[in-house]
């Protein structure tokens, strides 16, 4: 075997109180798609930042193509042939595509030359993109193309991709994989970070699994099952959520032509949303972020008021009611953003519990807070939902994402809602906490409450929903039974990919998707 493109030996990086990487060693070969797997906090980000020159390791060395490689900053890494597509896009909204690309290049040519190069590369790899458009107006998939093209213009030897598919529709994922396979065929190595195991099985040649900063295993994802990889990541046996048998009851919540204007400039208007939600069901609402999810949650929770008749709850018109009035009658919501929306970061868990639970749990009287009762309630949430924290006096900020999410979801569930609206309940939460949250939502539905779960994670929605609807540009599709929906049908419900006409028609996209699912590598001519 020839020498590897990149060899990591004994990389260690410690931050105060935590070792992010512990003696990490592995090789990446030329023309290989190498997956890096791990839970949140396993040290994946620190590792790729080390390779990209953003973090300096405490110990350990790297060799790139046989030469010692210790980039002082990203400029040095790019010069050496390492390019990176970031998880949270490193783009500048107010600038156009060509300017964004110039910022990511060493010695960029003049703007006009960049525009020509962008057109050439986007034709070559089937990534349609107009260099003069303002990035702030692009869809998530298009924004990612900007990042990818920025990398490709530098002919990288190694392309690092950090969770590239988390914001893409299935069709956009198919196009991305197509591009990555072309790159692989040209000899580019790709380091692919994801926790979507099925994608890794479809795309990657090798997988390295990190847990608590150390390499715990290497496997061939084409022959290893997703379940085995997940258990390697978590280090424990995973419990799949148990769906109890239950029957949908009466209609409890009705949305009748719910419309609302976008609350701010980059928001989405809601348009004519009609929906019946029944007791005891989990209704999954899918869609790429920014299609009206936040606005729909706001309209349901009462943050965004609508005409009274647009929302009917147990026979009452509640569109104009305030959040607390809705809580009193049993309609609760947990918004997406944990820090700053669902919880006040610098306040204690007890104080955070009071903020939504004071009405239903009678935590106040005559305007005064019953702190003992509030503490007991917060303690109840902590013990019931296994929130790992020293106690209810801890500041919300100091909890990890998964633990705080368990707390804010648990806080609503413990109030025995009749309808619970959750947005992205497991976003950025590790696998075991996510499983616990999903199980709690299913248990709540089994007790007869209606659950509306809004999420970008289609696997999650398929796992827990009874019915599935898609939100696209502020419009909601007609809900369909989740059982038996194919990925292709879901993709079409989500409005398909953006600007697909250049790349392919629907059937080809389906072909690519099927090829991925069966794990067959599919190189387009």
């Amino acid at each position: 075997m020839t020498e590897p493109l990149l060899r990591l030996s004994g990389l260690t990086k410690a931050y105060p109180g935590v070792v992010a990487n512990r003696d990490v060693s592995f090789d990446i070969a030329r023309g290989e798609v190498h997956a890096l797997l791990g839970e949140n906090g396993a040290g994946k980000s620190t590792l790729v930042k080390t390779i990209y020159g953003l973090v300096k390791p405490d110990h350990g060395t790297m060799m790139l193509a046989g030469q010692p490689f210790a980039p002082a900053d990203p400029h040095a890494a790019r010069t050496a042939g390492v390019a990176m597509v970031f998880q949270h896009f490193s783009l500048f909204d107010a600038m156009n595509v060509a300017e964004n690309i110039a910022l990511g290049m060493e010695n960029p040519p003049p703007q006009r030359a960049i525009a020509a190069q962008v057109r050439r590369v986007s034709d070559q790899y089937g990534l349609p993109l107009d260099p003069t458009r303002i990035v702030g107006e692009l869809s998530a998939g298009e924004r990612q193309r900007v990042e990818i093209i920025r990398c490709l213009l530098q002919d990288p030897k190694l392309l690092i991709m950090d969770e590239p598919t988390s914001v893409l529709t299935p069709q956009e994922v198919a196009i991305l994989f197509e591009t990555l396979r072309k790159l692989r065929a040209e000899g580019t190595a790709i380091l692919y970070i994801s926790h979507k195991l099925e994608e890794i099985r479809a795309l990657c040649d090798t997988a390295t699994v990190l847990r608590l900063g150390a390499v715990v295993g290497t496997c061939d994802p084409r022959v290893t099952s997703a379940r085995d990889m997940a258990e390697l990541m978590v280090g424990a046996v995973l419990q799949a959520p148990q769906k109890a048998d239950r029957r949908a009851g009466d209609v409890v919540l009705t949305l009748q032509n719910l419309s609302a204007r976008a609350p701010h400039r980059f928001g989405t208007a809601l348009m004519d949303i009609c929906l019946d939600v029944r007791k005891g069901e989990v209704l999954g609402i899918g869609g790429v972020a920014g299609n009206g999810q936040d606005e729909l949650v706001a309209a349901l929770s009462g943050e965004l008021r609508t005409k009274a008749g647009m929302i009917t709850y147990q026979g009452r018109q509640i569109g104009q009611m305030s959040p607390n009035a809705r809580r009193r009658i049993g309609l609760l919501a947990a918004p997406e953003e944990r820090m700053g929306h669902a919880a006040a970061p610098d306040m204690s868990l007890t104080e955070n519990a009071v903020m939504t639970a004071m009405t239903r749990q009678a935590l106040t009287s005559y305007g005064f807070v019953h702190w003992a009762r509030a503490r007991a309630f917060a303690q109840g949430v902590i013990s019931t939902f296994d929130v790992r924290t020293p106690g209810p006096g801890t500041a919300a900020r100091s909890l990890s994402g998964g633990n705080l999410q368990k707390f804010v979801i648990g806080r609503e569930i413990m109030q025995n809602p009749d309808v619970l609206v959750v947005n992205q309940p497991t976003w950025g939460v590790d696998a075991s906490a996510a499983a616990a949250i999903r199980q709690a939502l299913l248990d709540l539905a089994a007790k007869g409450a209606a659950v509306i779960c809004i999420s970008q994670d289609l696997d999650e929605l398929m796992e827990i929903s009874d019915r599935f609807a898609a939100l696209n540009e502020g419009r909601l599709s007609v809900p369909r039974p989740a059982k038996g929906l194919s990925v292709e049908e879901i993709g079409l419900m989500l409005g398909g990919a953006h600007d697909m006409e250049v790349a392919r028609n629907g059937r080809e996209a389906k072909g690519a998707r099927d090829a991925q699912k069966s794990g067959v590598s599919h190189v387009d001519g």
Partner: protein
Amino acid sequence: MDLSAINPILLLASLMVAATPIMLAAIGELVVERAGVLNLGVEGMMITGAVCGFVVAVNTGSPWLGFLGAAVGGALLSLIFGVLTQVLLSNQVATGLALTLFGLGLSALMGQGYIGVRAPGFTDLHIPLLADIPVIGPIVFQHDPMVYVGLGIVAAVWAFLTYSRAGLILRAVGENHEAAHALGYHVVRVRLLAIMFGGGCAGLGGAYLSLVRVPQWTEGMTAGAGWIALAIVVFASWRPWRLLLGAYLFGGVTVLQLNLQAAGVAVPVEYLSMSPYLATIAVLVIMRTGRAPGSLAQSFHASR
């Protein structure tokens, strides 16, 4: 009252002079804000520039050295702000306000021996040929050199931000400092340089008051010009040519209302005095389309 006493040519000519100090301070602050920093200390840097420029010009006899001294003084004062906010991560709003108070006090201290002294002035340029054009000549081409230096700075800033790579990086740092850092740009270094440029320009604007407009040193002589400069930056949507328009509009209405007062118009003086502020804000609010740089006034720390 006698409106015929107002000479329109003189009026338009003095407009350019009246607008220059605000324009200089505002163009500096525009660069600072495009880099993502909100420095509310413009007033303090202006008055420090005014006194530094005055002291240097009186002692050397050269107005040019005076302006140079003013720019250095403003830049040094702004460097205090830069170190506090960029290195020590203090709050930009509070630090900027403190800088204004500090600048006012410091300038009063430095200028104690200079009250009532007269500074060496510029002689107005008389640009050959152009200055002899009827009407336009006296309005545009017969001013002191700093008027043209100011216009040159506005044009240079516009070209820098629009066409140069360094300008692109500066805008990137202001738009999204996390992303700029991830791409390997030095956010703090870019911002410190921008802050010093802003301080230098504010110093020039202040010195224009003490060396050309008045031309004397009195305590608190900037009288809120720094705040107007700050407002113009925002209302001009962070664009250089709009900023020029806003400054000229403000200067124009200021000069006009002084002329109207002199002509004895039957409107209370208080209304006339507030008219430049109202007119500038009204026009720029109506024209306003832009949006603030994405990272404006946020502290940046690389470890986050």
